[in-house]
């Protein structure tokens, strides 16, 4: 197994607040990793460090052993990292198809891009929305179209920040199936705090608490651990 993405003692400070406090973590090729933790645990900040949106205060980030700490988001994306943000980030004025085509257009010609874009929309079962302006879509549909944009270029790693935020129970269920299916071909990191969803998909779980890694283990052991329960209930952890 090769390590795809790794962080080494990653620290992110905002003024006096240390949001991420020395996180060391490694994601293997083909892995499905969940990062969980209550609100304010530092998950989203950590996510933004991984994607180049924040430059960490100290520590390093590696992609296949290469130091990528200083890279900008577009350069991180070019390595083969597909990124889905918490609030769906789409081209509202463009149609679903146009958006997905743009996701592919960097690597492929126009015709090939359209072909692959249609495939991606079909895979996410939103092909019927191809000519609809994305700004007019419902929240759940937007999430799926964004996923199509992320998945279409076939990235080596997909990072999802709270993919089920704002989804109905039914949609969340479908998303879980989808993520398991995507994991057959892509390594995936999911940042989430919906425990039901994590239960449905998780293999390895990393628990964040106050900017640090509280524990990292197989899903069932994590869920059985009393410390994790305490963190979620807001109790102090020794």
């Amino acid at each position, binding site marked *: 197994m090769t390590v795809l993405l790794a962080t080494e003692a990653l620290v992110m400070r905002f003024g006096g607040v240390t949001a991420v406090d020395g996180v060391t973590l490694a994601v293997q090729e083909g892995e499905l990793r969940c990062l969980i933790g209550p609100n304010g645990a530092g998950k989203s900040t950590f996510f933004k460090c991984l994607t180049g949106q924040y430059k960490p205060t100290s520590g390093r980030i590696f992609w296949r052993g290469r130091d990528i700490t200083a890279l900008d*988001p*577009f350069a991180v*994306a070019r390595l083969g990292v597909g990124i889905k943000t918490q609030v769906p980030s789409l*081209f509202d004025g*463009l149609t679903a198809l146009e*958006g997905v085509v*743009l996701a592919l257009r*960097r690597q492929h010609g126009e015709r090939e891009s359209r072909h692959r874009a249609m495939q991606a929309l079909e895979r996410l079962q939103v092909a019927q929305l191809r000519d609809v302006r994305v700004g007019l879509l419902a929240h759940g549909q937007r999430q799926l179209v964004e996923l199509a*944009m992320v998945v279409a270029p076939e990235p080596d790693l997909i990072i999802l920040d709270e993919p089920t935020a704002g989804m109905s129970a039914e949609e969340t269920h479908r998303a879980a199936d989808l993520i398991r299916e995507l994991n057959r071909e892509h390594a995936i990191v999911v940042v989430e705090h919906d425990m039901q969803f994590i239960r449905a998909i998780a293999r390895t779980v990393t628990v964040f608490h106050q900017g640090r890694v509280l524990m990292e283990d197989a899903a069932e052991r994590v869920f059985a651990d009393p410390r994790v329960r305490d963190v979620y209930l807001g109790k102090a952890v020794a």
Partner: protein
Amino acid sequence: MRRAALEIAAVVLVAALAALGLPQVLELFALINATVFVSMAVLALSLGLIWGYGGILCFGQTAFFGLGGYAYAVAAINFGDTTLAVPLALAVPTVVAAALGYLMFYGRISDVYMGVITLTTTLILFKFANSTAGDEWNIGSAPLGGFNGIPGTPPLNWPFDPASQLAPEQIFVVAVVCLALCYAAARLILRTRFGRVAVAIRENELRAELLGYDVRLHKLALFAVGGLMAGLAGVLFANCVFVSPTMFSLSYAGQVIIWVLVGGLGTLLGPVIGCILIQFLTTRAGSFSAVDPNLLLGVVFMLAVVVVPKGLLPSARTALVRLAKRGGA
């Protein structure tokens, strides 16, 4: 795609009609005025492209307009031939736009400050150009002339033949052809991957970046193209009037914004139509001296914001579509 082809065909037709017909019917003064309108329309188009499609609100598009004009005048006077003065006059505003764009986009300046910075740039140039009276401000044999500008701006001549200068009728044709070419170039740019990414950046900068596109580079390149076009507008303007600090002035800088908004932000023809229509109106009002042109401009702008908030062209399009539907039903 068919609509784009139709639009291009219509523009070529109108341009050809104007270029061939207007010099026959208009008197010399009116024709020179029409040339001014057309050169301004190129300026409006340049802002329509970068603001309407790239989302870059440049409040100082006139900086590149004026730089183009001044560079042309200074080079033409020094070379004694306009053949090389034109490319030089296009290069100067393009390079300045690229440099300014580099500072703004790579410095990740937010939209509001971009407006402030670009406006300040043109106002600094305005101040500077105004304070260049006196012999110490000669570039070669060309005096910058301070407040008065360079009244002796030479008109274009046939390539490498300084003796045969173009007549005002010919300069009008050149201006119309330039406008049509700029329009076609903008349309083409928007069809390329680069143009589509630029539009995507306007829609959502973060998403474009997360798809692996270098947002800063795209914005910089589009901004430089806008600077080039505005510079061309300046060269044309210098050919029908003469260059003076007014080209950098706040009143011009503000007017370009109004033309684009009234005509229709997010279209290419809208800014051109808005520019020509408003200039026609204000010039008319000015010649009757019944109303103050600036007052009229303000009224037109307010009316447009209230009645056609999306601009003339998009509103006309919507109305037509509605009519067609009613006719079809």
